């Protein structure tokens, strides 16, 4: 267990946790999507890269990096598709007078 892997996994868990807190606390659909999309992508990327550092060179770490690259491309794509669906159906924005 080297120090780099420990640091990467700890920061990834932190980002995943903060994404969940933002998903609960934000008042609006678009702000929730802002928290969920970016924090989730970065958090799982950091956890998978930390596990690849822990593993060392080999087939398992190569597969872990492939999963990380796959998430790096697909998670923003899914977020963009969902946000496009919301924008086309005119989900309302939050304004300062609203509750929440």
């Amino acid at each position: 267990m080297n120090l780099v892997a420990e640091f990467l996994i700890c920061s990834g868990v932190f980002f995943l946790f903060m994404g969940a807190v933002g998903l609960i606390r934000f008042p609006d659909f678009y702000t929730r999507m802002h928290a969920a999309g970016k924090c989730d992508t970065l958090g799982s990327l950091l956890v998978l890269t930390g596990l690849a550092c822990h593993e060392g060179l080999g087939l398992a770490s190569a597969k872990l990096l492939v999963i990380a690259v796959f998430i790096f491309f697909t998670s923003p794509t899914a977020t963009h598709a969902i946000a496009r669906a919301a924008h086309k159906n005119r989900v309302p924005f939050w304004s300062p007078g609203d509750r929440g």
Partner: protein
Amino acid sequence: MTDTFFLSASLMILFAALLSLYRVVVGPSIIDRIIGVNVIGTKTIAVIVLTGYLFERVEFFIDIAFLYALINFIGALVLAKYFEQKGVEHTGPTP
């Protein structure tokens, strides 16, 4: 020591997934529920790989995690396309 570290990391991620489940249950519109399910799926990929380290069958669990990532992506895309055409009912500003 390494096992304890992986176990505590996966328990923290599971707790974060439990927090995201709140948005799936009480989300005001269907599209909030979709984003909650997508977030839980992304967290589950990390939990599956950490579980592989706990059981010492890493290569086996990595393939499952890759399949899970594929299915999560396709499910989110299909749900977004479907509700983009069907329409999103929205009740009130926020819960």
